[in-house]
C-alpha cells in the first residue's frame, strides 16, 4: 500500500494547523512519562506514532484525550488550549479515540453502538457501512457477539460517527490475524486518503504504516527522537532498525 495524493471530502486541501504540541511534559500521578515532546499536525494530516513498547506512545494519546496527567507545555487543538478542557469536552471539540481496549458497548447492537454516539457531519451510518460492509451485515448483533476483528471495526466506526477532526488509533491491529490486519490497513489507507480528518496512528509495524502517513514521530524513553516526514524515515533502514528493531518490519 502506498500513499496517494490526498483529497478532502470537502474537495480542497487545507494546510491549517490542527494540533500543536510544544514542550509537553505528562505522565501518570507523580511519574513523568513524556518529556519535552513537540510536534504539529495540519488539518487532514496523518502521523505515524512509533516506538518500542513502553516508550510513551499510548501515554501521548491519553494525554491528548485527557486520560493522563498533563504537567506542562502547549497542547492546542484547533487553536484551543486542550489542557483546560475535560476529556468529555475534547471529544466534542473533535478528538476521536479508538483505544487498544476498543471499549464497545457489549449489551448494545452494532447499530446502537454506532448511533448512540453520533454527531452531525459527513460520517453517518450509510458511510460507515460503506467503509465497513461487515458491520452492516452484523448490525443487529450485540457487541459481545462480535469477533475481535469485528469489534475493532466497530470501535473505529463508532469513533468516526463522532465526526472527529482528528482520529487517534492506538494499535488497532493488536491481536488480530494477518488476514484481518491487511484488510484494516486498506481501510486506514482509505481514511488517510479521503477521510478529510487528521489521523494519528500508533502501530508496532512501522514499515506497514509509514507508507500510509505523511509525518512520523518516534518516541524513545518518553522523548521524541524523530519528528519528520514518513518517507524519509521509511528509506533509512539503519535509523528504523536502531529505534524500532524487529518491530519495524
Amino acid at each position, binding site marked *: *500500500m*502506498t500513499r496517494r495524493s490526498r483529497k478532502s471530502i470537502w474537495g480542497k486541501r487545507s494546510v491549517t494547523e490542527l494540533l500543536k504540541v510544544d514542550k509537553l511534559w505528562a505522565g501518570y500521578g507523580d511519574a513523568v512519562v513524556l518529556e519535552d515532546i513537540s510536534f504539529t499536525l495540519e488539518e487532514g494530516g496523518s502521523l505515524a506514532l512509533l516506538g518500542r513498547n513502553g516508550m510513551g506512545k499510548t501515554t501521548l494519546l491519553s494525554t491528548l484525550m485527557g486520560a493522563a496527567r498533563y504537567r506542562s507545555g502547549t497542547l492546542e487543538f484547533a487553536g484551543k488550549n486542550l489542557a483546560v478542557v475535560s476529556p468529555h469536552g475534547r471529544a466534542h471539540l473533535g478528538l476521536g479515540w479508538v483505544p487498544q481496549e476498543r471499549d464497545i458497548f457489549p449489551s448494545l447492537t452494532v447499530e446502537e453502538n454506532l448511533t448512540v454516539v453520533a454527531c452531525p457531519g459527513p460520517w453517518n451510518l450509510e458511510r460507515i457501512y460503506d467503509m465497513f*460492509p*461487515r458491520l452492516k*451485515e452484523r448490525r443487529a448483533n450485540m457487541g459481545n457477539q462480535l*469477533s*475481535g*476483528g*469485528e469489534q475493532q471495526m466497530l470501535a473505529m466506526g463508532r469513533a468516526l460517527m463522532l465526526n472527529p477532526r482528528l482520529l487517534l488509533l492506538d494499535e488497532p491491529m493488536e491481536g488480530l*490475524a*494477518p*488476514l*484481518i*490486519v*491487511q*484488510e484494516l490497513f*486498506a481501510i486506514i489507507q482509505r481514511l488517510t486518503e479521503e477521510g478529510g480528518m487528521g489521523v494519528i496512528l500508533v502501530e508496532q509495524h512501522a*514499515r*506497514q504504516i509509514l*507508507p500510509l502517513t505523511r509525518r512520523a514521530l518516534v518516541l524513545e524513553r518518553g522523548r521524541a527522537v524523530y519528528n519528520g516526514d514518513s518517507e524519509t524515515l*521509511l*528509506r533509512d533502514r539503519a535509523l528504523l532498525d536502531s529505534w524500532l528493531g524487529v518491530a519495524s518490519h
Partner: protein
Amino acid sequence: MKAIDIIHSEHRALAAVLQALRFLLDEIGAGRLTPDPELLGYMIEYITQVPDKLHHPKEDEVLFRILRERVPEAAGLIDKLQADHVEGARHTGQLETALARYRSEGGPAFAAFETLARGYVDAMTRHIRLEEAELLPLARKGLSATDWAEIDAAFEANRDPWSGPTGEYRALYSRIVNLVPAPYGLGG
C-alpha cells in the same frame, strides 16, 4: 525503492491468505469445519490471480531482469525464483481443476484438493521467504538509484496490491476476509 514496499505489501497480503487457507484445511481435517466451496473458490482465485497475473510478472519483467544484469552472482537465485513462478502457475491451474472436481463430485474428491493445496501453501511460503531473505537484500545492495527509478516506475504503474487494475482484487480479498471463520477472518 517504492517497489520494495510494494513487494513487501503484496507478500504480506498473499501470506495472510495462505495462512488462512492452511487454517481452513487444518480445521476441515480436524472435523471442526466442513469445506465451503464458495470460500475455497475465492481463495484459489486470489492465489491464482494476484501472484500469477499481478505480482510475478512485475518481478520477472523488471526487477529480475535488471538485477540479473547488475548482479551476476544473483543469477542462480533468480533462476530458482523464476522456476518457482512457472511451477506456481502450473500448481494453481491444478488447484482450480481439483476444486472444480470437488464441486462436481463432492466429498471423496476433497482429499486430492487438500493435498495440492497444502503443497502449494508450503511451496509459496518458502518462495516468499526466499525472496524476503535473499533476493531483496541483494537488490538493495546491488542496484543503483537509477535502477530503482526504473523499477519503481514499473511497479507504481500498478502499485496497489489490494485493488488490481480495476479494483477486483480488493473486493476479492474483502470477500475472503468476511468468509474465513474467526479468529483468522470475520466469518461465523
